[in-house]
């Protein structure tokens, strides 16, 4: 029987918080409540990363997801003021049936892989993990060993930014200038 120490207790607390928040995200009716649960979820995940000695990832998780992306989500939800979310949830069609089917398949796959194909986790060496989690180590690795993937991702993000600007600039061509500009 594993001993219950402080970090186990924290893990159980944060893990159940993650699960509750995820359920809240998909089950709540109001989009704003969903978004808030998602923020809580990211927070709890950040806490779990912290338990795994991954300080940098924990903080980046909070900065990027909770601090920036969800604020943007919330901004859009509030701007559109989705009030008829009730009507949206009542529709069932073929598309939704397929979605449920594939989601179920994916779940079975994940459970199969996790349950049967994952080797037992090797005992973790605390000092090494703590060293890996620091910002310094991650930065060094990113700019030496993983330089190529890092640069590829940078280019990908740049492409996404350019694409967003193009999409946002609706009337960029002379023939498009008279096209409908409202959303």
């Amino acid at each position, binding site marked *: 029987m594993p001993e219950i120490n402080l970090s186990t207790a924290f893990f159980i607390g944060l893990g159940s918080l993650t699960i509750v928040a995820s359920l809240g995200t998909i089950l709540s009716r109001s989009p*704003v409540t969903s978004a*808030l649960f998602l*923020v809580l979820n990211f927070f709890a995940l950040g806490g779990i990363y912290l338990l795994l000695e991954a*300080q*940098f990832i924990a*903080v*980046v998780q*909070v*900065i990027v997801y*909770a*601090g*920036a992306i969800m*604020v*943007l989500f*919330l*901004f859009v939800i*509030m*701007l559109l003021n989705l009030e008829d979310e009730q009507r949206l949830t009542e529709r069932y069609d073929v598309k939704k049936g397929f979605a449920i089917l594939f989601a179920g398949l994916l779940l079975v796959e994940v459970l199969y892989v996790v349950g049967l194909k994952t080797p037992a986790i090797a005992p973790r060496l605390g000092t090494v993990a703590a060293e890996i989690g*620091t*910002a310094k180590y991650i930065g060094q690795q990113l700019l030496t060993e993983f330089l190529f993937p890092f640069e590829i991702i940078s280019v990908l993000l740049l492409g996404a930014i350019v694409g967003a600007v193009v999409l946002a600039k609706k009337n960029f061509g002379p023939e498009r200038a008279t096209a409908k500009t409202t959303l």
Partner: protein
Amino acid sequence: MNALALLLVMELGDRFALMGVVLGVLLTAVAYTVYAERRIAAFIQNRTGPDRVGFDLIPQLKFLKGAIGLGQPLADVIKLLMKEDVVPENANKFVHALAPLISLFAALTTIAVVPYAKGVAIADVNIGILYILAITSLGVYGITLSGWASNSKYSLLGGLRSSAQMISYELSMGLAVVSVVVLTNALNMGEIVESQTSNPLNWNVCRNLLGFIIFTTAAFAETNRAPFDLPEAEQELVGGYHTEYSSMKFALFFLAEYANMIVACTVIVTLFLGGYQVPFWTDAPWFVQVGAFITKTLFMMFVFIWVRWTLPRFKYNQLMDLGWKFMLPLGLFNLLIVASTIVIFGNSLPLSILNLVLVALCVAGSFAAKPQSKMA
């Protein structure tokens, strides 16, 4: 030296005690910042400001009566607490109550990583500066949610403005922070202060003047202080995000706003003004260091108040233009200057002077190139 080494390994109990002290000081400071703000505003506008309320009920403090109105914060707090707590009929009650708590949480937890003297901080974590960015980026939820939960047009507009504003200025703030990290080669707040040494020429305000300006401006925006106080623009939005708040909940927002301002000042002092470093006195005893830290913070707070009562509020488009078209490129440019000078010349003292000159030239050049710019 030994005493300092002992201070570096603070026990958990000491940290909790320090937390109690810091929160006590911070909350008292908030009350008197409000008072100071009113007095300074009055001074700037050629008025008198609050000068009546004394501590008449306490006989020992009777001499303060009618002198300078030092009892005003206490009277204000009591007035706020006695008021009726009104929640709008169609508000989301839970979120309505949650929002001020989020604001206050974000304001009060940021100060945890700020060092007050050598080795004295509530939480001396490796990623101190990233932690500050993370927590300040959460502060926006309090304002945005209060705007949404109140179910009022004015509140919603205030909340929307605030989320857009904070996202826009966080980037420039982050870039300024990165330039500091490049200069000091550390993410830990204590190490950032240590690397600035007790020579004021080595402080980041000299080595990285542009970064200091960018960070301070972004801090004005992040704390919703004038000239960036669009989320609560009285003339357009009644009270902005806190239109529908009263009594204690309003007091919490008020508290959070001023606590935010003080904490932002401490962060600016830590990153750019040498933190607890005493000029030309390397191994100063801890109380001198704390004194230096508080003095610098008070100075920055004065700057915050001074700016608020000097500059008029931006229009929304000016705010966005300044954030995205001016401060963001400037931040990137500054990062480029700092990084390249470090690569070429190394991190030495002459660098700071060179950097100052270079930055001054660049700023002058950018303003000379665009004389018709209506940005500032």
